């Protein structure tokens, strides 16, 4: 998503530095409000992470059901991110490079999945795949099912994660001056060659960021997935089940592991991305 994408990908404008001039009650007032907000975000998470005992945590991670759901979450989110990369990149590139009538509309369409209430997403995908729609019939005859299948989970996750990848990739492509591609073409490179030899190497950070954000959004989805596929269980669904069946105390360890899995995954990707030569 662009918020965190802005934090991670874009070079910030030159710092002004904290220069506290006299007469800055306003500054301290702002600081006070800011601390409240940060505590509001941090305290619940810290509390939740520190509440379960280590024994509980260890017992939970040995639970094959938990492990399976974590693995399924990661696997489907990865697939969704890959699909977004594959299908979203061309659209992001077109939007970054061309002006056309209806461009605003296309951009709004891309942002739709962000705005739509999550269960509605699930219901919408199921509506399409229903047997009384021609597409549903085609899919059924190919043996593809959405309801209660891994395919369905991936479809939902792709749906909700796409805007995050496309917007990040678009910002990345917009950051590469058209001039570079023009020079490449004047040197004999075709459009595809210019794209892969110049544009992609200069925007890979944004692309990677987009993939990470897309995967993050996909892994965190619950409302749409629970409609489309309660089983096989992804981790948030499992957590929800434990919460409703056994209460808060039994769902907390799963939540902790899910958070750790997400954080670990993103740290790993960050590290993989770091040592690449020549940061633009």
């Amino acid at each position, binding site marked *: 998503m662009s918020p965190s994408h802005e934090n991670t990908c874009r070079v910030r404008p030159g710092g002004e530095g904290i220069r506290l001039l006299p007469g800055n009650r306003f500054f301290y007032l702002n600081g006070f409000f800011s601390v409240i907000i940060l505590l509001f975000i941090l305290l619940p998470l810290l509390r939740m992470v520190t509440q379960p005992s280590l024994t509980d945590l260890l017992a939970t991670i040995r639970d094959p059901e938990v492990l399976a759901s974590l693995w399924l979450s990661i696997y489907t989110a990865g697939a969704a991110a890959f699909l977004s990369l594959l299908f979203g990149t061309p659209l992001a590139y077109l939007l970054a490079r061309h002006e056309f009538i209806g461009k605003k509309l296309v951009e709004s369409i891309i942002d739709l999945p962000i705005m739509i209430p999550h269960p509605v997403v699930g219901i919408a995908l199921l509506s399409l795949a229903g047997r009384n729609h021609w597409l549903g019939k085609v899919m059924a005859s190919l043996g593809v099912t959405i309801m209660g299948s891994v395919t369905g989970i991936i479809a939902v996750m792709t749906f909700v994660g796409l805007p995050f990848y496309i917007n990040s990739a678009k910002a990345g492509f917009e950051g590469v001056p058209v*001039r*570079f591609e023009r*020079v*490449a*073409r*004047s*040197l*004999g490179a*075709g459009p595809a060659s210019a794209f892969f030899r110049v544009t992609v*190497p200069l925007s890979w950070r944004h692309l990677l960021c987009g993939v990470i954000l897309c995967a993050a959004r996909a892994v965190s989805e619950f409302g749409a997935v629970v409609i489309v596929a309660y089983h096989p269980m992804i981790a948030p669904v499992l957590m929800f089940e434990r919460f409703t069946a056994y209460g808060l105390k039994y769902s907390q360890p799963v939540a902790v592991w899910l958070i750790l899995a997400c954080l670990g995954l993103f740290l790993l990707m960050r590290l993989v991305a770091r040592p690449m030569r020549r940061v633009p």
Partner: protein
Amino acid sequence: MIAVENLSVVWPEFQLREISLHIERGEFFALLGPTGAGKTVVLESIAGLVRPTSGSIRVAGRDVTRLAPELRNIGIVYQDYALFPHLTVLENIRFGLRYVPPTDRPAPSWLDGLIDLLDLQRILHRLPLNLSGGEKQRASLARALAVQPTVLLLDEPLAALDPRFRDEIRHTLKQLHEQFDITLLMVTHDFDEARYLAGRIGVLCNGRLEQVGPAAEVFQRPATPFVAGFVGMKNIFPGRRCDDRLEFAGLSCPLPGEVVGNPDHVALRPEDIVLRHQASFAAPMVTCHGTIERIVPAGFWHECTVRCDAARFSAVLSRRAMVEGGFQEGDMVFLGFEPAALHAF
């Protein structure tokens, strides 16, 4: 080498109208004009990066109007260098080589010669990020020339450079042109630059080509008031011919030699005007009387605005002339110039 016929590019906010240009093999041609005149659009049309609305472009005898840019074999160098920041200088230079068919590949000596002439040996393996402007522009020239383009287009190649690198690159361009026998089309807004480098000059204004000709001719005999202003004739007056005299700004003077037909403008360079406190001008000089309205010091000279009854003249005086004359704002002065300095068109 390049033949542009009736090239028009019409965009909602900009129009380039019926440009025709012919550039010979081995020529150094400069397209001159103020910002926004459409110079870069002409270059990019030739390179195939802009789709012309109408007109045709032939390069080396081949009609390239509808050809993709990568098939035209035309090099382009931008004022911001546009070096690929993720590649070293050498990788930048070799970027285009893989698209050249093996049979046409330039001999290794071509690349070596370029690298030598452009003095890139020391920086071949550095990334562009930390190079100086001059080094970047030299690398960018090498990259464009590495694939042996039929024509090299230069888009304000000196504009973004520090003054010290500007001299260096200007010199390099001159050397390149003399030693490698390449055809060069440069776009610039700086008349001195064009005059120093180019053999012929075209002046573009508002998407229209106002004048084309040898550099000296454009400088001495501008064809339109716009070109006259652009080449430094700050004093431009409406005027007319009466038999063998020229009338303008309330003055009447003998015709300068070159005038043919019925001109309707008279122009005069500010540095051709002499100011004196007494009316002690010798015979052929034309004089009039006026008041110094403003004196603005600027570098080595002072710019004086003198109001005579009918017109306002702009004169440039050296610092020495200023000190010796002791001119002040508000002084009454006599203003004189030789009729030969007038240009009527």
